[in-house]
């Protein structure tokens, strides 16, 4: 009775142990929510026989996972935080892969007339004056950090805003759902917005300012800090991500006829 019971437990626990080479990578929610991962991951598995397991988290948490050695590599979009990560020795280097841009989303009625803004500074100024509902990610992600930086550049202090400024502490999709429910303004990356299924009364109101440029970079975790980290596999992945096949797939990925990401890795 007892041995059989133990055998059952062991069988259940190990039933799903995978045999292929696997690499764990922490990525930002936008990479996954945009649907690009569904295109790239199968291609990576076919081309170099590597199964990439994605942990979809905010940039802040992705960096924490890298620091703790719980992932082999990270793919995020917050330059200052990435450079600090490499500086502190947690990552070996930073390699730029692709970019897209941030966009300002808001209600169709556009009470703050953001659609008429001439720059992102102007757009945020209009929002701060009108004080319509504004949803902030509030989760220390790359998008959240950028939003705070944009407020600062426009000479506003987000911490001093009233109750119209709502920090939801959630991922991109969940925050967009909240914005849709509140008919609120929100800063989103273009890829997540285009792939979002519950647009309700929201629309894209402002885009195109160079300040909204959004660079994604790949950072392998430093194997000197954690010996179990598969530096060999992340090097393979980096080669693939910066190669011609990745360029073709990233540049060719479209939703409703719009390109979501632009490949800009420098080929060595």
């Amino acid at each position, binding site marked *: 009775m007892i041995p059989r019971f133990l055998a059952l437990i062991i069988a259940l626990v190990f039933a*799903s142990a995978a045999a292929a080479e696997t690499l764990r990578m922490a990525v930002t929610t936008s990479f996954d929510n945009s649907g690009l991962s569904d295109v790239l991951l199968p291609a990576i598995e076919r081309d170099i026989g590597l*199964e990439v*397991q994605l942990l979809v988290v905010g940039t802040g948490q992705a960096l924490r996972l890298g620091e703790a050695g719980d992932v082999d590599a990270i793919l995020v979009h917050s330059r200052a935080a990435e450079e600090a990560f490499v500086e502190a020795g947690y990552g070996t280097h930073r390699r730029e892969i692709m970019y897209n841009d941030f966009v300002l989303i808001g209600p169709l009625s556009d009470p703050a007339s953001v659609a008429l803004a001439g720059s992102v500074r102007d757009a945020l100024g209009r929002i701060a004056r009108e004080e319509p509902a504004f949803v902030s990610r509030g989760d220390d992600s790359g998008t959240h950090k950028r939003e705070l930086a944009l407020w600062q550049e426009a000479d506003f202090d987000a911490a001093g805003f009233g109750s119209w400024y709502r920090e939801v502490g959630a991922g991109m*999709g969940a925050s967009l759902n909240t914005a849709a429910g509140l008919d609120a303004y929100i800063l989103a990356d273009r890829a997540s917005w285009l792939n*979002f299924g519950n647009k309700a009364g929201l629309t894209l109101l402002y885009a195109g300012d160079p300040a909204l440029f959004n660079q994604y970079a790949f950072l392998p975790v430093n194997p000197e800090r954690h010996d179990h980290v598969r530096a060999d596999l992340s090097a393979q992945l980096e080669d693939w991500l910066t190669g011609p096949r990745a360029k073709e797939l990233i540049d060719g990925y479209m939703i409703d006829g719009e390109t979501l990401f632009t490949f800009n890795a420098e080929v060595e």
Partner: protein
Amino acid sequence: MNDIYDGLHAAFWLVVTLDAQLIEISLRSLQVSLTALVIASAIALPLGTFLAIRRFRLRRLTISLLNALMGLPPVVVGLIVYILLSRSGPFGVLGLLFTPTAMIIAQVIIITPLIASITHQAMRELWAEYHDLLISLNTSGGQRVRTLIWDGRRTLLTAALAGFGRAIGEVGAIMIVGGNIDNATRVLTTAIALETGKGDFALALALGFVLIALAIGVNIAIHWLSRTESEGRW
């Protein structure tokens, strides 16, 4: 309302076409929660029974603690298990974080107090009935526990099913320790959270209906296998 209709519709097609991904994550849900249930029951049933028949110091405190732990917030359990299993945590060398095993560990911690508490309540009443008999037969402690568990098996089944219900519907802890990795640790509840995040309510609801159906199916199957509610014995 339309969303609910779309959800039912999508659920129907997912099931009819035997969607490969749906089957995979449903099986993983079952694998994780049933394993957690078996392990938790192996701990909780003897523990709850033991607490009912033995008097010792701190017994009252143990029971109150157990009852309080029934309401253990899954997110906190998830966070603690995460920190323990992280590569920089005390059990990091095992490399268990973001595997189904980590999810099983978290669920065992969540449901063991629940099963043990219900077991204790049921066994206390049964023990009052059996007390004189078992004492007069000069049985050992182990024999008493076994007798009570066997004769109280129907109530214990309810305890176990309550535990299973909590495990399979749980999302907070397994999201943190499992990481919701596609093809590795994605289960029904975390997939629902993910699809809701993408704004795909129809698919999220469809998965929700599948989850409910699965929970009902397991309950019926266990009742049928243990032949409760059959003629002449209810």
